[in-house]
């Protein structure tokens, strides 16, 4: 039953994702990509559980590595997206 429930979550999220993203204008495609990429670092949540669950050395090492990689993805992804978006300005606005 759980498999069915998880699959339902999957299908609904994909449908929602298509709906949301198809409205993003071309000028924002790069920030969209890096922002979405940062979201995919959510795998960090799983990595934290693996690294800290005290299930033996193998799990801790794999989890720890996963935490490091996913944190690079999350922190780097959000910061670089913010940096890019900070540069977009409209004509005649005072933003630098």
């Amino acid at each position: 039953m759980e498999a069915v429930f998880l699959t339902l979550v999957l299908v609904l999220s994909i449908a929602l994702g298509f709906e949301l993203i198809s409205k993003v204008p071309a000028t924002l495609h790069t920030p969209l990509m890096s922002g979405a990429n940062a979201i995919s670092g959510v795998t960090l949540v799983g990595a934290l559980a693996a690294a800290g669950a005290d299930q033996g050395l193998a799990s801790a090492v794999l989890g720890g590595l996963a935490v490091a990689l996913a944190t690079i993805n999350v922190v780097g992804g959000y910061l670089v997206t913010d940096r890019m978006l900070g540069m977009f300005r409209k004509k005649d606005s005072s933003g630098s």
Partner: protein
Amino acid sequence: MSNLAINFVYVASALLFILGLKFLSSPATARRGNVLSALGMLLAIVVTLLSKDILDYRWIIVAALAGAMIGALAARLVALTSMPEMVALFNGSGGGASLLVGWSTLYPASDSVFTLVTVVLSILIGGVTLTGSLMAWGKLSEVITTRAVVFGLQRILNSLILIALVVSGVMFVMNPEPSSPVFFALIGLSLLLGVMAVLPIGGADMPVVISLLNSYSGLAACAAGFAIGNNILIVAGSLVGASGIILTNIMCKAMNRSLANVLFSGFGAVKVAGKVEGEVKPISVDDAFLILEASSAVTFVPGYGMAVAQAQHAVRELAELLEKNGAEVTFAIHPVAGRMPGHMNVLLAEANLPYDQLVELEDINPRMGMIDVAVVIGANDVVNPSAREDEGSPIYGMPIINVDYARTVFVLKRSMASGFSGVDNPLFFADNTRMLFGDAKESISGLVAEFKS
């Protein structure tokens, strides 16, 4: 915190991700959207850390600090021209993390077939994303050849890898032993597949590859979510997966090619198009200045060459001077100009050019006849009239920016070498085209100096 409470907080995180993506649909709200999405992530991480399942924080603290430092430094230090490489590496690290999360699920091993299948999937997708992204990074930074690498037995070899993957995957699910050779074969083959998948793709097709790997990084998180039974991974992962697929589709359409064609054809290696004959007409900076000074409508068409020459600041300066001189200035951006979706837009934003001055090809093409000068800066295939006229051309059917319909075309180019796809460009030989040879940044700076004097 109880698992139930944690899962409710995950719902809030998911909502923040969704709102964040929604706000990304307008440049005015995009930055806020990114902050919302980051808040959602922070929320998910904090409640996970509060979970009673987490007993040992030592590994987490060390790994998270190291990762945060690397990520923050990379995000701050990277030059905007290297953004495609950066995004490729971030994609790869996400994929690698999902591979490891799937792997770690095997301690203690589960005997549920559903879980095992999803573990195999997260290792497969995560592994392909990891090495595929590293390959993409290598091609983008020109550590390895940017040309498509195609060899005789490639398809057969790739098919064998796929078959071996399926076999080892099935064998592993039937006998889940994480230290068995079968399991390591599974990991190794997944990593190998990522390398082989990106190998035959040429540099000009990189926007497609980057978008696709972006999608994979989401799907990998999704698969890892199934493996550990975690909703937030599935929701967030599939949002990213969907976003990557949409971008991939937009990129393919912009090149009038199917995804299969981009992935398997080794486009860059094919050079059979009809040779273009004719005489090129060079122009000096002085003469170019005289023409620009008399123009009332100018459009710039940037391409990857502008990024390479780092010419975006000089270009913005020239655009401002032209406007002061009374000309209407636009920037025509082709969807696949550069090495990733939206590459040119980011570079021009960095140069402080307002985004409402950028127009897409559907908007500029109908007005091209009214443009006095179209200035092509380091773009080639996206302005190649063969795509419209020559049925034998490999890029035939690709929507292009019709700069050849403008009264005059300036092409800024280093030399007469053919473009990235190796296709000759009749635009260079057209009657209304003038070639401004040399480094794009120097040529533009020369024009700026003339305007100022």
